[in-house]
Every structure is written in structure tokens, then in C-alpha cells.
């Protein structure tokens, strides 16, 4: 029995740490219609958040990049995988102009499939 319990323990410990994808922690907007996807492949994660000095930072995965660098990364990954979906994560209070910059940058390099990350409203 102890063997079993240890096995379960180790399983949940690894699952809870492995489940963390490469992304920064962020408060997301709530949505009632959004679905939790089964398939998370073909995704590039871009996160937008305010830094401490009130400028907007762009993260690709978990690395902070400028808009131009982000564009270059997306361009390279879309060549590799044409089905790439951009998973856009940002805080509920982010003004549209900041999101617009990213959307335009994505469209310019041919990434047209955008997914807004949200929490499901209960």
C-alpha cells in the first residue's frame, strides 16, 4: 500500500510541475463562451503585460522580446509550421491599442489564427 501511495504521490508531484507550460503567470479576462481545448499543439504563446514602469512588455513563451523580435520569431515558426495558432494572453485591463500592435504584427508575417486566452466564467 505504501508503494502505491508513493507512486501516486510522485505522479501528482510531477504532473503538477510539468503542467506548467512555458509562459508567464498572468491574470486573464473571463469569458462565458470559451472552451478549454483538448489539443494544445501548434501554439505559440504571446503574453502582454504592464511592467513596473507602466510600459507594455511582450513575452514570447517566457522570454521578453521587442515587437520586431517577436515578429521575427513568429515568422520563423510559421515557416516551420503553417498551422501555427497564436495564443494571445493579456490582462483584462489592457487597452486595445496595445493588442492592435501585436495583431497587426502577426498579420504582417502571416499568422492569421489568433486565440485569446481566457478563464472560464463560472
Amino acid at each position, binding site marked *: 500500500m*505504501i508503494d502505491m*501511495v*508513493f507512486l*501516486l*504521490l510522485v505522479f*501528482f*508531484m510531477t*504532473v*503538477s510541475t510539468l*503542467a506548467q507550460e512555458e509562459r508567464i503567470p498572468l491574470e*486573464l*479576462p*473571463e*469569458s*462565458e*463562451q*470559451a*472552451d*478549454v*481545448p483538448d489539443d494544445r499543439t501548434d501554439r505559440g504563446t504571446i503574453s502582454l503585460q504592464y511592467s513596473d514602469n507602466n510600459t507594455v512588455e511582450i513575452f514570447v513563451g517566457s522570454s521578453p522580446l521587442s515587437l520586431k523580435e517577436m515578429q521575427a520569431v513568429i515568422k520563423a515558426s510559421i515557416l516551420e509550421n503553417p498551422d501555427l*495558432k497564436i*495564443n494571445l*494572453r*493579456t*490582462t*483584462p*485591463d*489592457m*487597452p*486595445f*491599442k496595445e*493588442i*492592435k500592435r501585436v*495583431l*497587426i504584427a*502577426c*498579420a504582417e508575417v*502571416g*499568422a*492569421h*489564427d*489568433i*486565440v*485569446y*486566452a*481566457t*478563464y*472560464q*466564467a463560472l
Partner: protein
Amino acid sequence: MPPTKPFDPLFNMPQLKQKPSSRPAIPIAPMIDCVFLMLIYFMVTSSLEKQEADIRFQLPGLAEQSEPLDLPDEQIIELNAQGQPSVNEYPYDHPADRRYQELARMLSRFKQASDANRVESIVTIAPDDETPHQNIVKVMDAINWAQIKNVNFAISDH
């Protein structure tokens, strides 16, 4: 002569009442308590973490326009800086509402009307520069509720 039994001290000697054990035993019971506690902790935290859900849309761009298209029905939802949605200058709902019900019902009627006319229904979201992200997501929720699949963003360069 029968073979003699080899001398076995444990067999032949009188048993000691209790041998003092050379190795100290690990106390199992408290360890199980600990392990169970950890097990339950990890089980609970692994399911409590909020899962991220999706709202998808396509950016306009490489649409093929070679075939003649039926002119689709289009609605433009404008959002002001506070997140107030309005269509044709008529405001729907309050920006702080948890869900945009009036807007959703209007879009549902619009969707039914265009379905009846066998034309595609398209919704374009035209947010102000300062519109918060949450309000845009709520508008997308309303569009999704009305089962409209074509969503666009009006992106204007000032």
C-alpha cells in the same frame, strides 16, 4: 551410525525473551500520515489551478477573392474607451455588465435574419484605442452566443 546433527546454537540454545534489534525500525504509521497529507495536497493543487480557455478568430489577410462572393450581411459593433458597445450609434448594455445580453439577443436576431436570407453573417468589432481587453472578450462572448462564426477586427491606422 546415524549422522549427527550439526551444532545449531539458535536451535539448541534457550531462546532469549527478546533480542535487542540491531537496526532501529522506521516508524511506519506517522510516515503514512505524512505521505497521505502530501498526496492530498498535490491532488488538490493540481486540479485547482485555473485552466485557460480559448476564443478563436481569424485576422483578415490572405482571403482568396477569386470567386464572386455573395455579399454578406455585416454588423459593426463599436466600442468606446469605456467599453460601451453600440451598433449603428445605438448603445447596448452597460460596459460593466457581466454579460452583454441585449447585444447577444440583437446579434442572434441578426444571425437568424441572414440565415433566412441565405447570406453569411459577419460581425466586425471596432474598438476604441483605449477599450479594455475584458470588454472586447465580452463582445466576443455575445457573438459566440449568437453562433456567428465570422468575426473581424476593424484596425484603423490613425
